[in-house]
């Protein structure tokens, strides 16, 4: 029996070893440039402990004041995710190479979407606070654009993994491309779309806590106030509230995603 010889690259696992070496090299180089000083972390550890000590005694009396901004945060995330999704569905269809076969169109729209996604959410928040003023409206606008960028990419990559056979079948019935999307594309991606939307909603809730920092409304604004007043006992309550909400959303969306499988 003659077994074909493996190539040298296969025998010495050149790809795996090579990628590991490159990764280690990158880690060393980045560390050198950033001059990470682990000593500082150890020397100033007592400050961290002091902060932690304050936070160990949450000011439970402030809890009722957390509820309303927390609701605002969830509402911001909900509206931002919904509007972002509604915009993202047609956008993703146009960007999917198996639906739109013209590479110029998909290429051009992808550049636009990449730019949208490159804008950091903090920059967007700063921008919309300047335009729409301080408050949840700016937060909703930020989350809409942020969700749009993220969902579009998740969606079009998802669309490109579907079985293209049914798409062809619709074309052979004399159906239009739009009918093909409705009858052959969307049913195939529906359950994954829902799980991506839930995932984005989770991220939006977390993101919107930070956005409040820039005046974009919600629980983040409360967080920022407590920190600037050194009321770490109140900060603790806010963080706990965020934790509870994030865990709850995580649980609900996990449940929903499992049911969709």
């Amino acid at each position, binding site marked *: 029996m003659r077994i074909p010889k493996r190539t040298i690259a296969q025998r010495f696992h050149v790809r795996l070893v090579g990628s590991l070496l490159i990764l280690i090299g990158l880690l060393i180089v980045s560390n050198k440039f950033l001059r990470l000083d682990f000593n500082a972390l150890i020397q100033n550890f007592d400050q961290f402990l002091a902060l932690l000590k304050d936070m160990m005694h949450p000011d439970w009396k402030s809890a009722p004041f957390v509820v309303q901004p927390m609701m605002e945060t969830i509402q911001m995330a909900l509206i931002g995710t919904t509007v972002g999704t509604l915009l993202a569905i047609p956008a993703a269809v146009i960007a999917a190479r198996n639906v739109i076969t013209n590479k110029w169109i998909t290429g051009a729209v992808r550049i636009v979407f990449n730019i949208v996604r490159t804008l950091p959410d903090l920059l967007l928040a700063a921008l919309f606070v300047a335009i729409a003023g301080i408050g949840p409206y700016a937060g909703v606008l930020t989350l809409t654009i942020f969700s749009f960028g993220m969902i579009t990419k998740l969606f079009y990559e998802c669309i490109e993994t579907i*079985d293209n*056979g*049914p798409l*062809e*079948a*619709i*074309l*052979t*019935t*004399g*159906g*239009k491309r*739009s*009918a093909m999307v*409705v*009858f*052959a594309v969307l*049913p*195939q991606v*529906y*359950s994954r779309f829902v799980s991506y939307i839930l995932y984005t909603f989770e991220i939006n809730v977390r993101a919107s806590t930070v956005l409040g920092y820039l005046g974009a409304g919600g629980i983040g604004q409360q967080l920022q106030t407590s920190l600037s007043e050194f009321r770490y006992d109140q900060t603790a309550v806010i963080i706990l509230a965020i934790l509870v909400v994030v865990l709850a959303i995580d649980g609900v969306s996990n449940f929903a995603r499992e049911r969709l499988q």
Partner: protein
Amino acid sequence: MTNPELKPVIDVQHVSKVYDNGTSGLTDINLQVRPGEFVVIVGLSGAGKSTLMRSLNRLHQVTEGRVLIDGQSITEAKGRNLRQLRREVAMIFQNFNLVKQSTVLRNVLAGRLGYYPTWRSSLGLFKDTDKQRAFKALERVNLLDKVYQRVDQLSGGQQQRVAVARAFVQDPKIVLADEPTASLDPKTAHLIMNDLKSMNQDLGKTVVANLHSVALAKEYATRIVGLRAGRIVYDEAIRDVTDTDLTDIYNGGSLTGDGQ
């Protein structure tokens, strides 16, 4: 039963296909199919059977020549005109190409999409006559009891019969079948072939099928076309086909037909 005086419903004129990577799929194919024929195309894998079939409804763009469907060139058709020509050419695929997540009914109704504006089909506003048509088609293939089930709950053979029902409701002049039985067991294969035969004989549809099985080809075809390396090397009515001819198509021996 085919009348040579009839105008061909499929007219392939000097069609060649070269793939983007330079490999040649089809070379100077000429083929006229008349209404009511049941043409079976045989040949080895890679001989160009699928390429030829997919050129007939323009899932493939040919490099040279043209294909006329009922006298109109589908090769040069655009937009609405192309869709109307495609409506006349239903296709059945080896992999069924159904939307597995949708119900049987929705997959069958998809055969009517060529007759509706998208807003209407999207909202599921199919005419009652079309729903009746779908039920009738499912009854024909013995699957009426599965009408509201999801397709992924059906067996392979049942799925292919749903695809046949979809072709029924499309009400085309021509039915193309690209290896329709290749992923099915012999018994189910006969069921599918009988469906095609009934479309051909009872409804007068012209059928063109690619088959791997010589036995099925001989049983169902009214005419056999042999393809080898992208060329037509054999083309005879079924009464003139001998077993030696068929083995020659596969083995590359001398042939009485045109070509090599």
